[in-house]
């Protein structure tokens, strides 16, 4: 047995166990040492050990044969049944079918409704709610309960519940709720031996009923912690603060005001017995709460406490605390567990189905393949290699979806991918059907997972194993069910199932555990950390049922929200009674908003403050949080960031440059350094929609083809030209229009520009410039060490004068942008660079904007500009080769769109 929760060490808890032990021993003194005839009902098995110890200690015998220490549920389970129980999975399909047949909810998710309905039907069974035979009577009952006139919505509600209740109970099948009922009835009928019950809060009605029945045949004694605690000094203030809903004898609560209560308390108990036990810590935000809890837990550990419970009212905070504790190598046993649907083992399953549904949309596909559970029959490194290869391919080729496309691509460019893609294909085929039974779908899923090598991966993981087990169980349970479901319906079902499963990793043994409030009943720890004690989490909100409302549930005899709250209050009381070291934390502010403390604790604080001038605030922790951190092995701290200015070794100085490279060098030498010395580039992104740059590329292609075909416009009629350009445009666009509807819009945009383009081009010709070549590549040895290169959109020649050229560059930007580009001399080098390459005497941008189509040239004489530009290039490269530094001195306008901002780290330099 683990050594946690040893009953002996806690004075707070010992009092209660002693009382219980003493009572049982006294009553059965004559039977000692054999108490096996006696049954004690426990809230949970953690209570067994301290109780046994106290019994043994009280008896003082060498051996004491213990009473049967059992939870009610387990006790009932031990009763054999004559009939087998219909699993809930089968009942859900039956109900689903019934709903589908009735077509009451045409567009709804029937699984959700079926689940809600099953819950209701089970509750009705469990709480022995008799539904009247006639629907009309039921409706009348509802009408009274709602205190409202009947209307169609109410009628509908009555009808759904009534009809399905009778439909489902007509089957004569035995469901779990009924089985439980039969078993309890059996236990009560067979009752002979005395029964003891440990309670911390009110029993639900079915259990009460059982105890009554049992009590008719054999003695039943209840140990109610609330009553037992009432006489404890430490609990007096709690009792006074909260009162008891039914406790009429509780005079404090009902008639006295806070101030009077405080006075009385002080009279009875001059010193607070609770104060030393309980502290409240108000945190600013999640992180501080988590840190406070974490530091406190470690302080307790250091103080030698070896059973510490973290009661997680707030799951997020608990998660954070756990991570922080793990930094200090404190491992935590988590009794609360995780919903399976939030775990990676479910992700692989669902992503596989996603991928199928989206026909292998690349993000789904890559995400799937990056799961560690897939292809687990291969080396992990190998799998990763494949994924990365595929991803690079996908990014390079911009493939958005379709398994066939991926397969073709792999065939052409990366054969190593053939095999894994083939597996995907095969697995996909095994799930390619329109409808099947749930068991059939599950079998197919299993088959596909097998093909994908997911099964061994899951089996090697505790949560995965549970998932597999669940899949198998469902498949077996549903084997006899013939209802057919579409793939979508099945998927919904599966998602719902995964939402309902909890995985608990119980393999960790630790003195620190995370648990639920309800699981702490009658347990005692060396210390308790109550996490998330704000009003929103304590009491936690009840799940709002879809059917009826509280008033109706109350009249029908179903449990109501108030009960849920009362239970938590009682659990909290029990926790305070059983434990003598408790820290409750909450976020007093959350993202700048105030956040209230739990009303129970607020009340307690208010009264305690009045009575003892102590608001229970924890005051030490806040100051230590900063220094009480565990840090990883020390490393040399970075220096304050400053503008980088690296100088490249000769070997890394580029030996060729393009116009855009030169532009980058001018805009910011560091940017150039990152791009062309380090050769860093942004990842290719798969482009799913059409972007402006696609448009630019297409238009470039169109104009190139057009001029190749119609080199001199004057030789053609305008109509011919327009028709020609239209045709070519349509041809170039055809592929994209086929793929993406919005390409049409871009095509139209271009078509609208066509007349303007022809006009401009005619004017250009009129000036004597004739189209010579398009897409003209060049590569020149500029200096012995530097080559210049590029591709010029277009070169025109003068018709009259030989060897006079002009370079043109098409731009889809508007005129103003282009003018701005050229405004500051020397800052945009593209035109002078091209002019130099062709020794052209003119150079211009041609804006292709339909509204204002026009050529823009630099203000300076281009040859001068070229000369200066290239002279500077020479000078700069000479400097670079001599080790000149490349400062990150881009202006803000450049930095804003610079992909290297994470490298130069401009945002962090100290400007002061």
């Amino acid at each position, binding site marked *: 047995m683990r050594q946690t929760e040893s009953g*002996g060490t806690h004075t707070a808890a010992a009092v209660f166990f002693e009382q219980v032990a003493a009572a049982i021993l006294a009553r059965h003194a004559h039977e000692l040492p054999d108490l*096996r005839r006696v049954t004690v009902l426990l809230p949970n098995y953690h209570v*067994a050990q301290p109780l046994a*110890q106290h019994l*043994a200690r009280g008896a003082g*015998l060498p051996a*004491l*044969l213990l009473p049967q220490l059992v939870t009610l549920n387990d006790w009932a389970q031990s009763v*054999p049944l004559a009939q087998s129980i219909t699993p809930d999975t089968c009942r859900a399909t039956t109900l689903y079918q019934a709903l589908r047949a009735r077509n009451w*909810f045409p567009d*709804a998710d029937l699984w959700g409704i079926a689940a809600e309905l099953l819950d209701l039907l089970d509750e009705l069974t469990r709480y022995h709610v008799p539904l009247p035979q006639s629907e009309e009577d039921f409706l009348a009952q509802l009408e009274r309960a709602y205190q409202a006139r009947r209307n*169609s*919505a109410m009628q509908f509600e009555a009808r759904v519940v009534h009809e399905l209740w009778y439909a489902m109970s007509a089957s004569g099948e035995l469901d779990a709720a009924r089985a439980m009922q039969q078993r309890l009835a059996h236990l009560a009928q067979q009752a002979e031996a005395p029964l003891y019950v440990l309670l911390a809060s009110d029993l639900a009605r079915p259990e009460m009923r059982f105890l009554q029945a049992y009590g008719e045949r054999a003695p039943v004694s209840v140990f109610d912690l609330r009553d037992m605690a009432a006489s404890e000094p430490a609990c007096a203030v709690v009792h006074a603060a909260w009162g008891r809903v039914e406790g009429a004898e509780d005079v404090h*609560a009902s008639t006295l005001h806070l*101030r009077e209560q405080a006075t009385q308390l002080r009279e009875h108990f001059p010193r607070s017995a609770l104060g030393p036990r309980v502290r409240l810590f108000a945190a600013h935000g*999640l992180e501080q709460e988590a840190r406070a809890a974490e530091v406190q837990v470690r302080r307790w550990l250091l103080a030698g406490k070896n059973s510490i419970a973290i009661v997680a009212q707030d799951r997020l905070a608990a*998660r*954070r605390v756990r991570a*922080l504790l793990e*930094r200090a*190598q404190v*491992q935590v046993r988590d009794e609360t567990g995780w919903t399976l649907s*939030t775990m990676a083992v479910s*992700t692989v399953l669902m*992503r596989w189905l996603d991928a199928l549904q989206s026909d292998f949309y690349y993000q789904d596909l890559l995400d799937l393949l990056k799961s560690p559970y897939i292809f687990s029959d291969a080396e992990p490194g190998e799998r*990763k290699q494949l994924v*990365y290869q595929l991803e690079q391919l996908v990014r390079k080729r911009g493939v958005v979806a379709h398994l066939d496309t991926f397969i073709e691509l792999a065939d052409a460019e990366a054969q190593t991918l053939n095999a894994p893609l083939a597996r995907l294909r095969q697995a996909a085929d095994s799930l390619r059907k329109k409808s099947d039974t749930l068991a059939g779908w599950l079998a197919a899923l299993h088959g596909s997972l097998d093909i994908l090598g997911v099964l061994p991966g899951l089996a090697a993981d505790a949560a995965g194993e549970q998932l597999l087990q669940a899949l198998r169980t469902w498949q077996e349970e549903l084997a006899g069910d013939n209802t057919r479901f579409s793939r979508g319906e099945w998927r919904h079902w599966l998602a719902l199932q995964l939402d309902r499963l909890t995985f608990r990793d119980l393999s*960790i043994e*630790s003195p*620190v555990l995370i648990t639920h409030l309800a699981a702490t009943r009658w347990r005692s720890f060396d210390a308790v950390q109550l996490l998330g004690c704000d009003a929103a989490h304590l009491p936690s909100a009840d799940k709002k049922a*879809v059917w009826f409302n509280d008033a109706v549930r109350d009249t029908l005899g179903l449990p109501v929200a108030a009960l849920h709250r009362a239970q938590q209050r009682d659990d909290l009381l029990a926790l305070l009674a059983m434990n003598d070291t408790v820290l409750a934390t909450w976020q007093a502010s959350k993202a700048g908003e*105030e956040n209230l403390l739990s009303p*129970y604790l607020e009340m307690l604080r*208010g009264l305690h403050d009045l009575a003892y001038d102590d608001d229970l605030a924890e005051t030490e922790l806040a*100051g230590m949080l900063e*220094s009480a951190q*565990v840090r990883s092995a020390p490393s040399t701290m970075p*220096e*304050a960031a400053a503008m980088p200015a*690296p100088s490249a*070794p*000769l070997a*890394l100085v580029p030996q*060729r440059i393009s116009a855009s490279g030169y532009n980058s060098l001018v805009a910011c030498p560091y940017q150039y350094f990152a791009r062309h010395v380090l*050769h*860093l*580039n*942004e*990842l290719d992104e798969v482009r799913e929609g059409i972007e402006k740059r696609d448009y630019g590329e297409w238009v470039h292609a169109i104009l190139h083809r057009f001029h190749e075909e119609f080199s001199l416009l004057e030789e053609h009629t305008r109509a011919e030209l327009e028709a020609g350009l239209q045709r070519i445009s349509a041809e170039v666009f055809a592929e994209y229009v086929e793929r993406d*509807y919005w390409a049409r*819009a871009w095509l139209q945009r271009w078509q609208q520009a066509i007349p303007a383009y022809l006009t401009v081009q005619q004017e250009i010709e009129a000036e004597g410039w004739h189209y010579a070549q398009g897409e003209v590549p060049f590569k020149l040895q500029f200096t012995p060490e530097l080559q210049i290169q590029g591709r010029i959109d277009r070169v025109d020649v003068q018709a009259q004068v030989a060897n006079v050229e002009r370079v043109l560059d098409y731009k889809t930007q508007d005129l103003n942008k282009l003018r701005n580009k050229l405004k500051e001399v*020397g*800052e945009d080098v593209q035109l002078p660079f091209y002019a130099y390459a062709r020794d052209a005497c003119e150079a211009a941008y041609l804006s292709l904007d339909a509204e204002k189509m026009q050529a823009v040239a630099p203000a*300076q004489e281009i040859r*001068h500009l070229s000369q200066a530009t290239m002279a500077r290039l020479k000078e700069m490269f000479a400097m670079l080769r001599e080790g000149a530094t490349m*400062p990150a001195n881009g*202006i*803000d306008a450049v930095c804003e769109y610079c*992909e290297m901002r994470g*490298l130069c780290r401009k945002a962090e330099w100290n400007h002061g």
Partner: protein
Amino acid sequence: MDNHIALDPKNSVVVEACAGSGKTWLLVSRIVRLLLAGVQPGEILAITFTRKAAQEMQARLHDWLHLLASADDETVRNFLRERAIADVDAETLAQARGLYRDFLLSSSSITISTFHGWFMQIIQRAPLNADVPVGLQLLERTSALREEAWDAFAESLRAEPEGELAQQMQWLFNAIGLHNTRALLENFLGKRAEWWAYTLGQTDAVGWALEELRDALQVDEDEDPLDALLEQDFDLTVQAFASLLQSGSEAQQKVAKTLDEARAQQELQARYEALFNALHTAKGEPSKKIKANKGQDEVRFNSLLHGVIDVLHQVQDALAERAALRLNQAGLRCGATFLQHYQRLKLQQQVMDFTDVEWQVARLLKQSDSAEYMQYKLDSRYKHVLLDEFQDTNPLQWQILQAWFEASVAADERPKIFVVGDPKQSIYRFRRADSRLFGEVSEFLKREFGAKPLNQNVTRRNAPAVLDAVNGVFEAHPEGFVDFATHIAHHRNLPGHVAALPLLFPRPDGERGRGEGEEKSGEGEEESTGLVLRNPLLEARAEADSGARELEAEQFAAHIAAIVATWTVQDAAGKQRRASWGDIMVLVRKRTHLRVYEAALRAQNIPFLTSRRGGLLDTLEAEDIQALLTFLITPFADLQLAQTLRSPMFSCSDADLMLLAGLDTAAQQPLPLSTQHTAPSPQPSVLSPVSLWTRLQRCANTGSPALQRAHLLLQDWLQRADKLPVHDLLDHIYFSADVPHRYAAAVPESMRATVHANLQAFMEIALDVDGGRYPSLPRFLAELGELRAADNESPDEGRVGEVGNALRIYTVHEAKGLEAPIVWLLDANDTNSKTDSYGVLLDWPTNAARPAHFSLYGKQSDHGKQRLPLFEAEEDYARREGMNLLYVALTRARQALIVSGNGKSAEAEQKKNVLSWYDRIAQLQAAADNPLLTATGEAALIKAHATVDVDAALQRPLPTGKRAAGNTLEQRRGTWLHALLQHLTTPGVLAEQAALQALCGIPSAEMGALWQQAQQLLAQPALQRFFDAQHYLSAANEMPYANAQGELKRIDRLVEFENEVWVLDYKTGAAPDAAPYRAQMSEYRTAMQSVYAGKTVRCALVFADGTLREM
């Protein structure tokens, strides 16, 4: 204002209260009064505009109730007196004291919520057959789904490229282009609630709406407006006018010629255009140049001219109406289909966005049947409804309230209604709020509920100096600000200061940085070597920042620094202290230019917080983390890796990166330092596709310490990234790389707090996302990408960080409900109010059930005449809202208000005809001195906990707990067999194999063998006496006992005979070696001997093969 009336639970009340007048005080006081009057918490519904306000209200209420319960009698009496309870008798006192407990522990709880939250509560109670998804999820961020709908829409168009819809789309592309089409349809989608309301009950919604519009625009499609040109009168007038011009000046003759040419045009459209252009400027205004010369008959000239122009304008208008109708034909059809796609997607995913929720609530509540149902289905019956910030309510919300009231009147009794608001602070028109409602509603409430109207113009917030400015600006009732009454300061002695800093204009060209200057000198010299260009290696390009805005930003930052150095403010308790960064709230109208101002603050090392979430993800530190995570799932992402390496996480130098870049990967050696430019190899080997990560791995042992450290950590993270949830991974990263501390070391002091907060905030996003379904790191990053792209997704209140002392920057909208000692209104000279050029024109008269008009509009020139009144009303309203915004901005300031702005030039300022915010304040009489400028207060006490010396052990790891080694299969088999035996030997238990398998959780593969083993064992003749009930008196399985030390023990099987008692212990091992079990068995024996004193206790081991070995 009379609190007696306002707070009396018996009254319904409408309070119009100015900014800072203590609306929360009033509202919460009213709640206290209600509780005191015995109203159950569950009978109270209070609705306010933000969650933050709701939380504040809750907190205030708790505080007060606590005070009532705990303070001395006199304090309580005073408290109640302040809230208009005149004589407080003992009973009232007792009652007041009891409220705290009753309220906290009551099972009926008060609803203090936003409309948002309350509607969600209601919709979850919708009738089952109301088409509201069961277990409905609220879709908070809609942009991703809208994008998806847009794609689905495109897909459907692609499938039928020649269909009717596609043709309409094509028309839109042609007419307004893709970009505007999208904007138009998105705007339509944004107004879907109005569209539904408008077309409610119509089977062919679009067709009906178009018919309505055709009537409204008075378009008769059978007539051609151009026919007017054919009328003989008209042609004669043109002719006459032309000949009149013919006799005039040269310019007139030219016009005459064009007119004559135009008349000759056969094609009517061309003729119309030619005539129009002849008489109008390029902008379409009638040309002023065409007027009678001296000597011409001016009367005749003008009458002819107008004769022509009037007809032309008629045609123009008629054409515009047609164009408008055409736009609607295409736009509404396409918009409605786009909307359908969006709705279908949501249905598929069983989600609703907030507009859906609002609409459904309205729809359901308007049906009396379901309205009643939802009333009683909700467990609370509200007898008191309190509405805060009522001016921000939209018509649909009001209708919902109204329907709710009606239903409760029908069901029960008339609730009491308490409305507080201020039409002057209505600034949420973009969320469809309509401040005109305030007036309508107060009339309605007066009429139907006998509500009493009250006014409050005393403010408790602003210093008199600030109020003077407020009064000065608004007393003249500018731009329809008619409901302003002079504000009065409650704190008359609060020192205050208002300043309008001089407007800043761009520096004249001469002062600019180089660039242009150089250019000039180049031009001047005219020599061949003329141009000297900047050498970027030596000289940075001058920021083109001599713009006015940059100057304003510099001035702003410098001034802020001065304020913190020399100003004194007064805290809530009335104490003077030095101003701190946190005392300053900076307001802007829009975020467009924030970057410039933030840069200036950064340059001065002033800590500040912007409140955008998108902003968080764009910060360098958050980008670093995203880069790292991206690298972890895409190890070939070189740039991301390089960024990670350069970030403070590793702070690798550029030299480190060059080392990697220079690695000759084939030889695993650095490249030789001499270059071979003689060799014609154009491809240096660094271009080989070897990833940066591979390179890093290769120099794992030879690189700099920084690189080595990076390699080790990254390798570890890559492995963990596979299995750890994102948050856990991130936490491990933060911890193992000491992330927060390293960032703190690298960034300037002033940025430390914000960087720290941002790193933390990022962690919390991860934590949040991890709770979601089917998480994975790639999905997380994709979602962050979406978040970043959808910048303005949720315009709800901004996040205020917990960072202690930093300047806060807000838009005026975000600042609603906030205040600060010092408020700076930035960029206040901007008068541009750009409105959407493609959108929805809507007329929803307050209190009408549905809009009276709904249509789409395009460019201004196509607005047409018929809708002009609506457009004008819109504009008036927008101007009025602009004033509201200014009012809100000014009233945020407790003590000081500073305004700054920039403009084009002093001359341009002279000429403009619209007053900017800046102008309105600047033209007020400025007070001479600034009482805050005293610098006597103590430096602000930054709340820092005194550093506590902690136990050094708290800084060290504390290895605790361990993962238990998993059981071997052998051990598990043992456990299973045990369990089987236990069940099989318990009398009365079902011995069915399948049932037992399930009960004991035995895998199918194992069951067969185990079952057989168990059966064999039980069938052993030698063991019969222990298992067959005929042979023994009693037997017990798994029998627990406690020994004298209180230790719990368990005996596998205890069998009692006449004279002896057997203790059996099952052993699964095959080798029957008994030795190791001796001690245990002897302990059993001693214990049992004490129980069965008169009998012999015998102990034995039973092995799986059936061997019995007595000890």
